[in-house]
């Protein structure tokens, strides 16, 4: 029997709430800090408190090419590692917003922020299917192994497109499928919260992003996890530079 969206959200929240307390990784049984060291450059994570664990499957900040003063939104910010790395990259004039729906993760992230003194980082409780963010205000969306958890990915992609500025970038790590899963695999909630059964096939993922309005969507890299029918990928998408701009070449010429 298919799980409802509410059941899935409840299970994901419970699963990650526990993980904020006792650490384990989203895509494997490895120790979290070991895992973090496999994904990130050691210089980047040096000086981070032990509790800034990574529950992700990649390092989206490395590919995002962040610039000074940019506004970054992290979907499913967890303990905040990608937010803190992004905050360094965008500098004091930039800002980073971490969105998460798990109280335990948000509390941990806020504690880590205070410890690091990262003044340009903010954590908010919200869901990525209905983001509490104004239209056209974000330069870059990042996310690490989270979108596959959403029961309504079309809404996540629509909302991502809405909050991005014209020319905005979407650079995430996520889990994709190399084949359709069996019904038993799909309905296994622990699999779901462990990244697999909610994942989409690669072509489906990109088609949905384009349907949500992204001008371009592509897979930048793939990394297979053993012989499993899923793999971790880095995905990039772009909002058209003249979209939503009232001062584009066609719009202003229509004005009086």
């Amino acid at each position, binding site marked *: 029997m298919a799980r409802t969206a*509410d059941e899935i*959200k*409840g299970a994901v*929240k419970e699963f990650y709430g526990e993980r904020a307390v006792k650490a384990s990784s989203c895509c494997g049984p490895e120790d979290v800090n070991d895992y973090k060291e496999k994904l990130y450059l050691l210089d980047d994570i040096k000086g981070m408190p032990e509790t800034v664990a990574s529950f992700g499957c990649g390092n989206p900040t490395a590919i995002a090419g962040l610039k000074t003063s940019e*506004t970054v939104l992290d979907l499913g910010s967890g303990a905040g590692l990608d937010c803190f790395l992004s905050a360094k990259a965008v500098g004091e004039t930039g*800002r980073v*917003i971490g969105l998460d*729906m798990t109280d335990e993760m*948000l*509390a941990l992230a*806020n504690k880590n922020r205070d410890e690091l003194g990262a*003044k340009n980082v*903010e*954590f*908010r*409780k*919200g*869901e990525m299917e*209905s*983001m*509490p*963010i*104004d*239209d056209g*205000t*974000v330069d870059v969306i990042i996310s690490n192994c989270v979108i596959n958890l959403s029961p309504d990915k079309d809404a996540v992609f629509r909302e991502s497109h*809405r909050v991005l500025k014209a020319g905005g970038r979407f650079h995430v790590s996520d889990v994709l499928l190399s084949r359709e899963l069996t019904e038993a695999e799909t309905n296994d909630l622990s699999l779901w919260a462990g990244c697999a059964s909610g994942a989409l096939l690669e072509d489906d993922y990109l088609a949905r992003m384009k349907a949500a309005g992204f001008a371009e969507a592509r897979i930048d890299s793939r990394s297979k996890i053993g012989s499993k029918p899923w793999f971790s990928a880095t995905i990039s998408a772009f909002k058209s530079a003249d979209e939503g701009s009232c001062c584009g070449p066609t719009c202003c010429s229509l004005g009086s």
Partner: protein
Amino acid sequence: MRKDLMDILACPMCKGELTLTIDEEKNDEVIRGGLFCAKCNERYPIDDSIPNLLPPDLRKQMSA
């Protein structure tokens, strides 16, 4: 939540503006308060510096 990061916040439902009320603050950080959407007539609470901007149905369900 920092007051100067209000500008890009929006109601999760109608994406309209939110009005901040402060019950407790420390320096430029709002510790406890609320964010009110006049259009939806909905108050989103701020507790322990974290604004809870989950859609109202989900917020009620998750706090149940």
